[in-house]
Structures are given as structure tokens and as C-alpha cells.
């Protein structure tokens, strides 16, 4: 029995790096410090695994599957590479290269989680911080449209609510916690104050707060929030020693999308005339930040990148997977570490069933169920080493704690094989 310490959790954007994984033989026996989801990921990582590659439902060798994948991609006029967020950075880099050599599009799951956050950053910027600054300094913590107990279970404990920090030695007592949302959630129960905002009313509320921070007195209720509550929150924000807004998909997926973030960024920026204020998106997949980061350094753009013209072009809404599928554009797709058939609106998802779809995954998903080519791969962060970027943009080394189940290859290795074959096929053509 071996205990591996300092293991980084490959589930959510928190990238907790204090896991202690107990391994016996090639079996994981325990996951200390892990949250419920993380434990499930480690403990069940061997369950429901895809055993062998398949082409049109028939079991084939890895080479045959790779060949089928390469043929479909090499002959496609509008291939799309999608997913990327639940694997390590080297695999992500291969995805970008695959899109480049096939003259296709590469998009990652950011487009349906914090893509709008990136659009806002491109419009107005962002005042952000690494999570440790929150732990060490923040005396005002605002969760806006985010609910860590559902998606980032240890966030409260490690970073934002209870930890004792350099200048917040009292921990929870040293912080005032506000939750703004359209409904009460477990986060509201933790918070000192819950502000219920009307559906689709975040934008107006954030805008009014910014006006209040600038000195305007709000006299009417906005988005269901009483005027005095808005004025009081603005005052509290200005008087904080250091404040932070952790925002989630409650802002990015509701009416207003990127503009909700744009105005939140503006509010936070404005507050820097008075005190220190920052905001941080609650990124979901453990390496969605890495998908954006790698794609950006290689192409200049974080997602929705089109290589049809040989050079990268960028336009969310045009080159994003949901839109392209809804319009029926792609004539081949390769899905890496993602399940768009389940996570996209059905109208988009169904196009995947019409075209050659290649999926690299560990387990059966709706996407593998409708794919022509399915290639089982090893789990990054459990069976494969690599890099992942935390929600605040800092990277950690993922560990390999056990050998890949059934000797399967990693995303990176399979992608390398596909790239090599695509290159050869393109040369021949």
C-alpha cells in the first residue's frame, strides 16, 4: 500500500493540491482530503470504462480506430475539434495542432461556461487575483450567481470563506460574505447576507451598484432589490479592505451573458479607486482555464478558433461548437475529454450523430454512444501526468497515481497518432 501525497485533484477549477491517494496494486483505495465529487472521480475511475476502441460500434484495434479517425478528419472540409477542458495541457496543445493541420476549428468547453467572461475581458479587462490573496486579505467576499457547494466543494474552506490568512487571522469571522442569486442555495446559508435578484436582472443591479460607487444615490428598487440595500452594499464594498466577487454561470448563462460580466468588471474596476477589489470566475472543469491558456499562447485566441484559411481566426458565435453544430456546418468532429451530446442543447447535439464523430473518453457517454469512432483513453491526473490551470490561471502538475486502466494510451498519445496519420494522408492528397 502506498500513500501518494500532494496530489492535485482533476475535477474542478479549484485544483486542490493536498489530496492523499492510497494505492494498492493498481487500485485506488482511498482519497483523503478529497471532496465528494473528487472522491467519486478517484474511487470510481475504473468503473464503466470503455474497454476497446470501436468503429461504428465494432471493436477494432487502436491503429484501426486511429486510421478511421484520421481519414474522416483529413478528408473533412470543416472539421471541428471540441472539448479539451478535462485533460492536461499537452493534449490540449495536440488538439490545437490537429485543428491547424486539418484546417478546422478548435473550440473548448469555455464556450458554454466562461466564454462570456472572456468576451467581457476582451471588451473591458478584468481585475483579478490568485486565490491566496483572497485567503490572506479579503474581508468582503461576494458570491454572485455561483454556488460552490454544488460545483467547487472545497472552495469555501481552502480559499474564500473560512481559511485563516496573513491579514485575516480570524478566518470566517474576519470576512463578511454576501451571496447574490436568483434563488437560495447552500451558499446563501453560509453567507452573512443573501440578496435575491430577479431573473435576468443582474445586469441592471450591477450597473446601479457601479453608479452608487461613483456617488449616485439609488432611489428606486432595482431588479427586485431595495434601493437602500443597493446603497448599503455599495458603501460596504468601498469600505472593505479588500473585496472579491466570485461569479459563476448564473451570470454567464443568463440573459445578458458577457455583458453581465462586462458590467461586473466595470464595477470592480471602479472600486479600485477606493480600495482593493478583484473578481474571479468560478471555472468549472479542472483545466478549462488551461484549454484557454494553451490555445491562447499558440493561436492568440482562447476558444472558437478557425484555421480554415491556414491562420487562426476567432469569432465566438460563429466558430463556437454550439453554433456550428446548430447550423450543421461540421462534416467531421473529434471530441476530446468532453460530452457535448449531453451538455449542448439537443438541437446542436443531434448534428454530431449525422457526421463522422470521433470521441476520446474514458467512459460511455451520450457522445460516445453516437460516435463513429470511440477511442478509450487514460485519465489525466490519475493515470497520466500533465499540467492543469486553476481557475485563477496558475498551473500545477497533475500526478499519475496508477497505471492506465487496461493499458490504454493517454489523450496526448492517441492525438499524436492521429496527427501523424492526418499529416501523412494530407501529404498524399
Amino acid at each position, binding site marked *: 500500500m502506498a500513500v501518494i501525497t500532494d496530489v492535485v485533484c482533476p475535477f474542478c477549477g479549484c485544483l486542490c493540491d493536498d489530496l492523499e491517494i492510497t494505492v494498492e496494486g493498481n487500485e485506488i483505495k482511498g482519497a483523503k482530503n478529497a471532496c465528494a465529487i473528487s472522491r467519486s472521480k478517484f474511487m470510481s475511475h475504473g468503473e464503466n470504462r470503455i474497454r476497446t476502441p470501436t468503429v461504428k460500434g465494432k471493436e477494432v484495434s487502436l491503429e484501426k480506430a486511429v486510421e478511421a479517425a484520421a481519414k474522416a478528419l483529413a478528408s*473533412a*472540409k*470543416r472539421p471541428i475539434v471540441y472539448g479539451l477542458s478535462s485533460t492536461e495541457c499537452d493534449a490540449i496543445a495536440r488538439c490545437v495542432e490537429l485543428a491547424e493541420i486539418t484546417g478546422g476549428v478548435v473550440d473548448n468547453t469555455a464556450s458554454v461556461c466562461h466564454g462570456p467572461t472572456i468576451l467581457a475581458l*476582451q471588451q473591458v479587462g478584468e481585475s483579478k487575483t490568485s486565490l491566496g490573496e483572497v485567503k490572506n486579505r479579503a474581508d468582503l467576499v461576494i458570491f454572485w450567481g455561483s454556488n460552490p457547494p454544488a460545483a467547487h466543494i472545497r472552495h469555501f474552506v481552502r480559499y474564500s470563506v473560512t481559511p485563516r490568512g496573513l491579514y485575516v487571522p480570524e478566518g470566517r469571522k474576519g470576512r463578511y460574505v454576501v451571496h447574490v442569486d436568483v434563488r437560495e442555495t447552500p451558499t446563501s446559508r453560509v453567507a452573512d447576507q443573501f440578496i435575491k435578484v430577479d431573473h435576468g436582472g443582474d445586469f*441592471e443591479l450591477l450597473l446601479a451598484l457601479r453608479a452608487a460607487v461613483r456617488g449616485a444615490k439609488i432611489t*428606486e428598487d*432595482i431588479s427586485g432589490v431595495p434601493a437602500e440595500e443597493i446603497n448599503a452594499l455599495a458603501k460596504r464594498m468601498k469600505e472593505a479592505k479588500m473585496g472579491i466577487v466570485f461569479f459563476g454561470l448564473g451570470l454567464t448563462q443568463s440573459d*445578458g451573458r458577457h455583458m453581465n460580466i462586462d458590467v461586473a468588471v466595470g464595477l470592480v474596476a471602479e472600486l479600485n479607486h477606493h480600495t482593493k477589489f478583484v473578481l474571479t470566475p468560478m471555472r468549472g472543469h479542472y483545466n478549462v482555464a488551461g484549454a484557454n491558456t494553451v490555445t491562447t499562447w499558440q493561436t492568440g485566441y482562447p476558444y472558437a478558433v478557425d484555421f480554415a484559411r491556414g491562420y487562426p481566426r476567432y469569432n465566438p458565435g460563429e466558430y463556437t461548437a454550439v453554433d456550428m453544430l446548430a447550423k450543421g456546418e461540421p462534416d467531421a468532429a473529434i471530441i476530446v475529454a468532453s460530452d457535448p451530446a449531453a451538455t449542448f442543447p439537443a438541437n446542436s447535439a443531434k448534428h454530431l450523430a449525422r457526421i463522422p464523430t470521433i470521441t476520446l473518453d474514458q467512459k460511455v457517454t451520450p457522445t460516445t454512444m453516437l460516435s463513429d469512432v470511440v477511442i478509450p483513453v487514460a485519465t489525466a491526473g490519475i493515470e497520466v501526468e500533465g499540467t492543469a490551470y486553476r481557475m485563477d490561471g496558475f498551473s500545477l502538475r497533475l500526478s499519475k497515481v496508477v497505471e492506465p486502466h487496461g493499458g490504454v494510451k493517454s489523450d496526448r498519445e492517441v492525438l499524436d497518432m492521429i496527427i501523424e496519420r492526418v499529416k501523412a494522408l494530407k501529404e498524399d492528397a
Partner: protein
Amino acid sequence: MKELVLKPKKLPELPLEAEVITPDSVAGKTLKEVKALPVYVGNTVHELGDYFDVKGETAETPSDQLVAIQGECGNVKYIGAGMTAGRLIVEGCVGMHAGAEMEGGELIVTGSASNWAGAEMKGGLLRIHGDAGHQLGAAYRGSPEGMTGGVIVVGGDVGLEAGAFMRRGMLIIHGNVDSFLGVHMNGGEVFVFGKVARRFGAEAKGNGGFIACFGGVESILPTYVYDTTFRPDFMKLYLRQLRDQLGIEAAGKFLEASFKRYRGDIAVGGTAEILVVEP
């Protein structure tokens, strides 16, 4: 003006990218050269002649060139993008980015346009008789400047974020317009004769920019301050210009109208105006 006629043959199912369809790129060329202009389908390159019958005459210079597309091009992107002179008439619909970054001349679309029509337009006239999609005349992602000149006239309805980051120029919409019209605008004039959805003018800075609403509004942002109801002389100038120079009949009806004036967006210390016609 010399007229060149393009008739779509069987267009591909994938979008066709044809930024070569402008008076600029055909003027001074032979028909053979025009037919050989590159167009793109996914990752493949084709010739314009593969998808269009090309007939008529080319002019020496773009300003003497009329290009007429006779047929639906709803899935053809970048028609008229970057054009600087001449006239381009599409008898039908156009795909994304029609007239994007155009600098001059006239682009007329008798049908509807998709997203990003007239995006980052610098000059000229873009007339869309049907509807326009999202991001009409907007800035591309990240760009601090949307329209910096020119006029866009839309006969029908318009989607989200029309005129986002507008700096100069005019946007005239006959139909209804969806949210975030003129968001981040900092100059430029917007006239809407249909109904305006909420959140228009959000984070607008001012610099003389205004949004004039003639057909009602869903709601006005709380960060716009109501000042007065008045009949400003300057509006008469614009409305006469719209009526007389652009043939916007609707404008003529409001020459004597009173407007409610709002100023904002105070959330960004802005001085832009919203003018809502009094019924």
C-alpha cells in the same frame, strides 16, 4: 456605371466566404479574371466562377462599378466587406459580415442580413431592406471601436448588440431592435422607429452619441437620468437629413415631435443621450 451581374449557381451547403464580391476587387479586371477570384468553402479554395455566373461589364475604377447579385446568398459571408466605392446590390439575403469594415460606396441588400453586418464600418451606406442579425455595425470582439462612420439603414428588425462600441456614423432601424443597442457607444447616432428592447445605451460614454427612439422602449436603464421633455432643434436637422438625403419617410413624421431626454450612463460617468419621442 458599368454593371456586373453575378447569378448564384448551386451554392455549397457550407458557408461560402466571398470577400472578393466588392466593386473594388472586380473593377479593372476582365470577366475571366473576375471568375478566377478566390472564394473559400471550409478549408478549400475555389473560384468565384464555380459558384456564380458572371456576366456584364467591369469598370476601370471601383467608383464606376455596379455589381448586382441576382439571387439568394444567405449563406455567403463577407459580401461587400471592406468595399471603398461603387455600388453593390444583392437581390436577396446575405450571410454574416456583409459590408463589414466597408469604407465607402453603397451596399444594398433587398433581403435580410445575418450577424455582424456592417461591423466596424468606416464609411459608405449599407441598406438592408429586410432584417439584420446580431452585432449589426458592432465592434468585433475586443475592438474598442465599432462603427466609425457611414450609415446603416435597416428596413426590418435587428438583433442583439447593434451599434456596440459605436464611435461615429448613423444607424437607422425601422423595425424592432433587441437588447444592448448601442452598448459602450461613444459617439454616433441611432434612430429606431420600431420598439427598443431593454438595456440600450448601457455603459455609453457620450461624446455626442445618442439613441433616438420613435417607436417606444421596453425600459430605460436605471443609470440614465431623466432631464426634460423638449423639442430640440438639432433633431430637426437630423430628421430632415434622414428624410431628404436617405429617403427615410418615417423621419418626416417626427419633425415637430417632443422628446423625453435621458442622460447617462451615469455608471460610467457617461453623457450619452436617450431621446424618446412623446406620443
